[in-house]
């Protein structure tokens, strides 16, 4: 345990150093307000040895569990966009939900602005809950078809005590303007909107209470390319305007490259690699990251001739995850130690990688 703490401390320091470096570069490059850069170094939320398991049948003597998230340590810095990437079933959505306690963790701690929110009483937590919001993947399923736009966007405001009708309408209309929904749609219902507009309504609902942290769970996966870019730009604008912190969950690495400051790659409930977006894309240290990047179809036929190394095999079952490093069954570089011992996180500059034999 103490050993784990040491490691985490190191991770935090490394991360902060890097943030400073990046902050400087950004200030020079784009003239970003120095105060924002200052804020950026602060840890908003950090998770310690987080575990989430779901029961999966079996017998009473021998119950089976899905190991959705296993021993995750993670920091999210104020004002950044941290992307969580991985293939389906790797636990990225579960982790996102556990972090804001939409799902209760099986074990571990989550510190939000220094307070441990795991096991915190409902009354205490209500005060923090309004600072954490979520945007879902499917804008068709995440809006109540029987509620009009004004009710959907107004609901969180009413829940958190806005009583005056005039004030409420003004606030809802302001939010509609923020996300680019025309004022005349105030009384319309979700089915009267296209997918992109519905996602904008979901975003308006999420920012209604001036949250600090927004979990974006595949917010553009269900949208067409031309609409996807509109929504991504909107998310970036809102972040700049309100200093929002995003945890951006996605399987699309091109989208992540555009929006994220840092990336966390997951495989089967465990973190493979965390690091600064540009350097991680340029030089992946975990074999899985490299295979993921290699597998993306690039929109340029000239790149096609380069013979690609592809991953073989399928994702193992999270009910019986492989021993040791969970990636070893698909990893071409696996050796005996990978089968026996789960790799500890090691730092390489600002990067943290969980691999016995990192690349590069």
């Amino acid at each position, binding site marked *: 345990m103490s050993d784990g703490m040491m490691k985490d401390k190191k991770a935090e320091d490394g991360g902060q150093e890097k943030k400073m470096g990046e902050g400087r570069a950004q200030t020079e490059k784009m003239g970003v307000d120095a105060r924002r850069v200052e804020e950026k170094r602060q840890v908003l939320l950090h998770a310690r040895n987080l575990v989430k398991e779901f029961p999966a049948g079996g017998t009473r003597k021998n119950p089976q569990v899905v190991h959705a998230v296993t021993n995750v340590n993670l920091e999210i810095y104020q004002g950044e966009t941290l992307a969580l990437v991985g293939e389906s079933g790797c636990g990225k959505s579960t982790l996102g939900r556990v972090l804001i306690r939409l799902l209760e963790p099986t074990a571990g701690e989550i510190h939000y602005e220094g307070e441990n929110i795991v096991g915190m009483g409902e009354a205490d937590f209500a005060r923090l809950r309004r600072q954490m919001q979520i945007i879902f993947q499917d804008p068709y399923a995440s809006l109540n078809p029987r509620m009009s736009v004004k009710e959907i966007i107004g609901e969180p405001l009413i829940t958190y005590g806005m009583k005056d009708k005039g004030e409420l309408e003004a606030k809802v209309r302001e939010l509609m303007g923020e996300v680019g929904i025309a004022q005349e749609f105030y009384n319309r219902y979700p089915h009267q909107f296209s997918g992109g507009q519905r996602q904008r309504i979901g975003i308006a609902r999420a920012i209604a209470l001036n949250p600090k942290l927004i979990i974006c769970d595949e917010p553009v996966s269900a949208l067409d*390319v031309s609409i996807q*870019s509109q929504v991504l*730009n909107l998310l970036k604008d809102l972040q700049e305007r309100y200093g929002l912190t995003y945890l951006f969950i996605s399987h699309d690495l091109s989208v992540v490259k555009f929006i994220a400051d840092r990336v966390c790659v997951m495989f089967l409930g465990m973190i493979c690699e965390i690091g600064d977006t540009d350097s991680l894309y340029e030089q992946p240290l975990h074999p899985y990251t490299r295979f*993921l990047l290699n*597998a993306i179809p*690039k929109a340029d*036929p000239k790149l096609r001739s380069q013979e690609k190394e592809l991953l073989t095999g*399928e994702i193992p079952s999270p009910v019986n995850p492989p021993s040791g490093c969970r990636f070893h069954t698909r990893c071409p570089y696996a050796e005996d130690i990978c089968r026996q011992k789960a790799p500890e996180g090691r730092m390489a500059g600002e990067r943290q990688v969980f691999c016995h034999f990192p690349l590069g």
Partner: protein
Amino acid sequence: MSESIVLEIRDLRSHFFTAKGQVPAVDGVSIQVPAGKIIGIVGESGCGKSMTFMSVMGLLRYPGKVVGGTIFLDGRDITHLKPKELSKVRGNEISMIFQEPMTSLNPVYPVGKQVREAILLHQKVSKKEARERVLDIFRAVGISEPEKRYYSYPHQLSGGLRQRVMIGMAMVCRPKVMIADEPTTALDVTIEAQILRLMQRLCREQGTSIILITHNMGVVAEVCDYVYVMYAGKVMEQAETFALFERTSHPYTQGLLRSIPKLDEKAKRLYTIEGVVPNLLHLPKGCSFCTRCGQARERCFSERPKLYETEDGHGVRCFAYEREGVFV
């Protein structure tokens, strides 16, 4: 294109007859598929890319109807075949796979038997022989332990394996054309790459032409030989893949390519095509893209552009290329 054409669609029109009016989902689409090539059909949802090939397969159901055009398979007109004749062609000479393999497989039969059914339906072989053929095709599409998988039910297989079974089923009668409607959209990137490579190999080894319907420009760039870009029921641009990406001509195609986030550059903002896809019931009078096009002129709002040929085999539906002459 001088190669032999296996499938030719000429001026196909499929409309939906709804309570609100007639919806021109497919509005004069012409597509040529040469033997042994991979043809990409790209476009956003509702552009008619799937409906074109549902029409080809005779799978359009009420209120949809083919109202015009002809479809030739190997020189033979299959547009007006009777259902019985059509079912001899379907699955045998031309086959189709869909996006979600779970919903296209029957959950209560083992997958091997479902593939065997395709053989027994079209060819006079014994059940034992058919089973051998199934095992062969399972090996060919990269299913490990085919004997064991033969008796597996769909729910016991992963998404990637199910899609391999579907491809096996589509390929088992060695069709001339296989239509793949978003075959990798529901799959993870590492599995997607495997399936794309498999389709390329089958195309090369068995000489089957593949029509790849997709919304992903990356997939097109990766495997297709020739590309059609569709928008609001029409082909907006068509070209060989390299020409399309190097000399992108139609404003819509240009916008589409520019709005994809690139891996090799860090943009501050993404390019966007303003507005949304028009309602097919109320299409603009002129070019269907005019309401979202940055380069639209007065004429674009009143007249419909034809497909103009900018270079050999490269057609663009935009007045900017009118002097080049009409595409044939």
